[in-house]
């Protein structure tokens, strides 16, 4: 079996990549992609921990399923917000969406 520390390093790197991407990007869809990467890192974490803990109830796997479902709902609402924004601002560059002071 792959050592647990490898998995932890991998998910931390994946999560960090997603966080860095979501903080640096100016296009809202790219930010959403960064968030999805972070959620993927979490799912790998949950499933891997479930395996290493030999959790018979499979709590980690079930949690990962719920995370996926919620991520889909979140993306749906997020994209709807982007569409509504694109109508009034002619684009979804977050640096240019600034009627309200940041």
């Amino acid at each position, binding site marked *: 079996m792959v050592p647990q520390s490898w998995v*932890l390093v991998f998910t931390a790197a994946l*999560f960090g990549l*997603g*966080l860095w991407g*979501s*903080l640096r990007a100016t296009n*809202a869809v790219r*930010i*959403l992609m*960064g*968030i999805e990467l*972070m*959620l993927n*890192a*979490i799912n790998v*974490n*949950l499933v*891997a*921990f479930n395996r*290493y*803990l030999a*959790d018979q109830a499979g*709590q*980690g796997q*079930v*949690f990962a399923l*719920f*995370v996926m479902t*919620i991520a889909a*709902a*979140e993306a749906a*609402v*997020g994209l*709807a*917000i*982007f569409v*509504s*924004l694109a*109508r*009034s*601002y002619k684009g979804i560059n*977050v640096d240019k*969406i*600034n*009627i*309200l*002071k*940041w």
Partner: protein
Amino acid sequence: MAVALHFLPELIVLAAALLVALLDLWLERSRQVLHWIALAGIALGLASLAPLALRGPAGAEALPVWAELWRTDGFALFFKALFLVSTGLVLLADRRFVEERRLPAGELYAMLLFATLGMIMMASSHNLMVIYIGLELVGITGYALSGLDKSDPRSSEAALKYFLLGAVSSSILLFGLSLVYGLTGSLTLEGIGRVFTVPEGGVGLAGMAVLLLLVGFGFKIAAVPFHMWVPDTYQGSPTPVTAFLSVGPKAAGFAALLSLFVTGLPQATSFWRPLLAGVAVLTMTLGNLAALSQTNLKRLMGYSSISHTGYVLAGLAVATPYGFRAMLFYLAAYAFVNLAAFAIIIAVGTQRQAHELADYRGLGQQNTFMAVALTIFFLSLIGIPPTAGFFGKLYLFGAAIEQGYVGLALVMVLNGVLSVPYYYAVIKEMFMGSPEPSAPPVTWPWGVEAAVIAGLVVALGLGLGSDPLLRAATAVVNAL
């Protein structure tokens, strides 16, 4: 049947939400029916708490199979009642606003009810997965609610900022939760509480997990330095949504934070306590300082709500039963007073779009009762006797002193003084200025009046006799 009793408030609110969403398709003309269904759902949900409340704090024992997943103890009932009442107050105050601004009423009411469902779920859940689902139900409906006014670009912008920061922060929170699961092998709070410790110095995965949880919850409850979304989202959202966001999701975040940290991470108290105290001091002070220079009332209330988050966090940082009791008292008093103040802001903002301080000029001449009521709410938010807010701050102060946190107590007092000028600026506009002749007159629907009177009863009633709520909070904390 006995089991269903423990889920009855959730089932009722869910049924009302689905009914509103469904009927919205047919009832295009008579949107008032939807409003009544939503209000009835909240009222029935509140009534369904009664049988459990009468059973006493031992209500949890009736659910042996679910004991580590779902609790209906005093803690859960206290927060469920608080959430249902606060959504009820928002619903009471918002009808005229929704009609005038042509907001999609069915969607607004259905999503308010779904968000309430998430909040009352969080109050009961003792399992990380259920807490997370509740949190996201509140979060996702919140993003949609703040962008509800599609004709107003500011509303979409508010939704964008809330959504992006909210989604990033719940990912951070979730990463922390996954680490906690990996470290303890359990998703139930009791199971985690038996095992979870942070080694000396706070290094390693356990310390990391607590930090990630703090960052995630910091966004949800709007604590500094994770508060950037608050002023913009509060200013841009439709005013009833702002009122809802300033109380409901924030109190729900505190409920989850309290049960997670007190039941799940008690062995790490010495690690998270100084962190929370630091965040509390920063949140109070920066919230108040930023509020001083605001001229838009919704933005001002945003910064004011940030500073109140700091006070409540101070109660958690003290981490004694006295601190938790003060925290519950403060949250309940804040919820009523803030929502009643928002009812007035909603009424004034129905005809006038801007929510600038100048819109409140001369309100004292036009409607003395409302101007005096808003003054009393602001006095309670500052913490001047004889109002509920005074006792809230007093109990927090006492809890901090009792635990030897003199510095924290001093910061609280100084912040009380610091918050006077910006509330006073509004009061001055209301009573000193004379109304501008061009401004349209403000109308006062009965719903707003009802919410304001409820707020007055709580603000002054608790100010004159704070015992009932304090006893309730003590019972809740003793059962924790």
